[in-house]
């Protein structure tokens, strides 16, 4: 039974990667290899960032005889990363999965069902934590001679540590499940909580240099704190350095925490998974309504879905928040930005590239918004509605494009205009920059939609599967980043021999042409494809 449940979880998790369409055809080997390579690239990029962090911590701490503190710190980062990465998925997968009631109606012990779901979550958390811990171990072994015991224990730490993050995610998810029925605007509250998480994360990331200096300067005091308050990580550090007792204590404590959480959740799983109570229900009072044209009604529907789903909002619209924060930060730090960036480019002989650099930065953040990429998948089993209504599929697709533009374009323009003003870019450069950003936003919107029409996933039990795990989402995100890198690299080469303004004009033409072609494809092929899904 447990095997069958775990198999079901795995099938669901990997369905969008292994199965192609609504008919459930298996993807071609080429597509599977492509997806694998993209995943590997994303994974390697993040692992490289954490390797840099490990590199800056390893030598100073190890040379001070605080190798255990190095592992304890990296273990703490890995746990934090694992929790941030998995807490909302844990909530969705454990407590609000669509098939909870179906499975609970079967002769399956709740503990067994919970365990099968936790296996999937454990693997996800392991992936998150390995991004931090594997580079941490490798960096340590390169710079510090380690005996066989240290290597074995450090390696064993990697699969054990995720149990702690999973336990924390389960508790946080449980709290969410307990309060969710009483919260009125769930998506907004969830989004706010996530933003708080992210803000904390970025504060740590932005202040990493200061923190590193502080950590190294106060390593003895911090080590003392770890020995007492974060005892588990202290033992983990000792174990990773080859201490048998430390390793055993770490494993016992982590497994103990997990066992307690699992036991408590098992005892309450049925109640939590079927908790549908809420506050007083809203009663309808007739209000004056106005008839809207089809286009506005469809856009209104897309907006309702976007604001009504915290998963969609957070995973597909976070770039807008960063653009607004970027614009405000640029205004606050206008003097510093103007002085340093202009000076840096002048010193490098790349002063002409200022508008291009500005566009690249804004476009990189813009490409974090992937609103259209899951928008077809999100129709799910309700796609029959749009297909049976007297509305042309092109109008439906237009509404999805408009949503992307509405969410992305205003903050992108705000950020661009503020940066242009702060950096005092000339009129021609400013006009070309604005056009480049606008057309890039349009291109990303159309590209994401094309990807989702090519790789739709209409069969999901949790919205998170459509929003986070679809191949279209991954392709749209990497496609956006790849395009920015391509434009940036092309610009650098161009500026070595020709004026930068000419390159931006080429970008405008290329993005306009590319966007136009994608829209043309969506109007014809895309409409037919949507109607036939």
């Amino acid at each position, binding site marked *: 039974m447990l095997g069958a449940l775990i198999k079901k979880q795995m099938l669901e998790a990997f369905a969008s990667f292994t199965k192609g369409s609504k008919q459930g055809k298996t993807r071609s080997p080429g597509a599977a290899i492509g997806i694998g390579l993209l995943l590997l690239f994303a994974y390697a990029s993040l692992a490289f960032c954490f390797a840099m962090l490990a590199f800056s911590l390893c030598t100073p701490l190890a040379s001070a005889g605080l190798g255990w503190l190095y592992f304890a710190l990296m273990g703490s980062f890995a746990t934090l990363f694992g929790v941030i990465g998995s807490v909302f998925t844990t909530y969705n997968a454990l407590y609000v999965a669509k098939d909870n009631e179906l499975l609970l109606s079967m002769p399956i012990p709740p503990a067994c069902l919970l365990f099968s779901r936790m296996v999937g979550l454990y693997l996800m958390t392991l992936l998150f934590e390995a991004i931090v811990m594997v580079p941490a171990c490798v960096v340590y072994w390169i710079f510090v001679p380690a005996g066989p015991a240290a290597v074995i224990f450090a390696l064993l730490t990697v699969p054990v540590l995720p149990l702690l993050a999973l336990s924390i995610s389960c508790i946080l998810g449980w709290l969410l499940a307990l309060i969710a029925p009483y919260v009125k605007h769930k998506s907004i509250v969830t989004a706010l909580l996530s933003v708080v998480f992210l803000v904390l994360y970025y504060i740590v990331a932005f202040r990493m240099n200061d923190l590193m200096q502080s950590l190294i300067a106060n390593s003895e005091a911090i080590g003392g704190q770890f020995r007492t308050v974060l005892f588990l990580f202290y033992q983990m550090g000792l174990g990773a350095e080859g201490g048998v007792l430390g390793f055993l204590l770490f494993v016992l404590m982590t497994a103990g925490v997990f066992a307690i959480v699992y036991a408590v959740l098992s005892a309450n799983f049925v109640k939590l998974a079927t908790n549908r109570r809420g506050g007083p*229900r809203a009663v309808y009072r007739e209000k004056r309504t106005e008839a809207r044209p089809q286009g506005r009604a469809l856009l209104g529907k897309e907006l309702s879905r976007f604001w009504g789903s915290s998963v969609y909002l957070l995973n597909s619209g976070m770039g807008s928040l960063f653009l607004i924060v970027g614009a405000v930060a640029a205004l606050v730090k206008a003097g510093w930005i103007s002085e340093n960036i202009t000076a840096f480019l002048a010193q490098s002989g790349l002063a002409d590239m200022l508008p291009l650099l500005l566009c690249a930065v804004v476009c990189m953040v813009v490409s974090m918004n992937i609103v259209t990429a899951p928008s077809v998948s999100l129709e799910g089993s309700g796609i029959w509605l749009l297909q049976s209504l007297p509305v*042309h599929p092109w109008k439906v697709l237009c509404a999805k494009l408009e949503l992307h533009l509405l969410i992305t374009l205003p903050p992108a323009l705000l950020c661009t205009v503020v940066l242009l003003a702060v950096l005092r870019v000339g009129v021609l450069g400013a006009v070309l920059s604005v056009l480049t950003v606008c057309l890039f936003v349009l291109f990303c919107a159309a590209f994401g939609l094309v990807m989702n029409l090519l790789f739709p996933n209409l069969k999901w039990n949790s919205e998170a599967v459509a929003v986070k795990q679809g191949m279209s989402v991954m392709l749209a995100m990497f496609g956006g980043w790849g395009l920015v890198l391509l434009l940036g690299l092309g610009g650098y080469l161009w500026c070595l021999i020709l004026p930068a303004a000419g390159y931006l004009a080429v970008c405008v033409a290329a993005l306009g042409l590319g966007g136009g072609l994608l829209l043309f494809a969506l109007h014809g092929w895309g409409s037919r494809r949507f109607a036939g899904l």
Partner: protein
Amino acid sequence: MLNIQHLTKTYGDKKAVDDLSLHIAPGEIYGFIGHNGAGKTTTIKACCGILQFDSGEILIDGLSIRQKPLQCKAKIAYIPDNPDLYEFMTGIRYLNFIADIFGVSAADRRERIRRYADLFELTPSLAQPVSAYSHGMKQKLAIISAWLHSPQLIIMDEPFVGLDPKASHLLKEMMREVCRQGGAIFFSTHVLEVAEKLCDKVAIIKSGRLIRSGTMEEVRGDASLEEVFLELEDGNAGRAD
């Protein structure tokens, strides 16, 4: 109103619907019965323009669903077997969305929403999100939304599933009212007693092929519809006019 001519639809090697022809005239309630997997839903989806078919033709009020899909869809309303509605919307928002798509005026939609929501006792719940609705409430909402634009043809797949007895009775009355006003109803059902009492005509489909159709009297003769259906299902395919 609905003219299905030699409809054929295959999934891979399997013929889901095989050379099916039916004619539903204005004022008729037409029942469509058959075992699970017989091809009822495939036929219904093809009539609604949701499913592309291999050959044949479907005409709605003289217009081809292939060539004029939007005009055809504007004349019909479709209720699927499983009401997967927009769960992120409230009931009233969903109804307004459907009314907007069909271009129903503000005054008409207000009057119709009030009338049908009151009939189905759904009015107080219209402010709640569809995700909070029970299956029966979603079915009622789907029915109200189908009636919002006063369609000429209503196509329903198992419409009585999930409805309480009062709502079922109401739906039957509403179906008769549509026909009295010159509209037509084409619906599938497994509840043969309902089909027998409600339908003017009935068609029985087996393995994608029409095995009998006509007025209720023609199809059942002196026996009950259940007896005829079971006899046909046992393999004695009879006539189809």
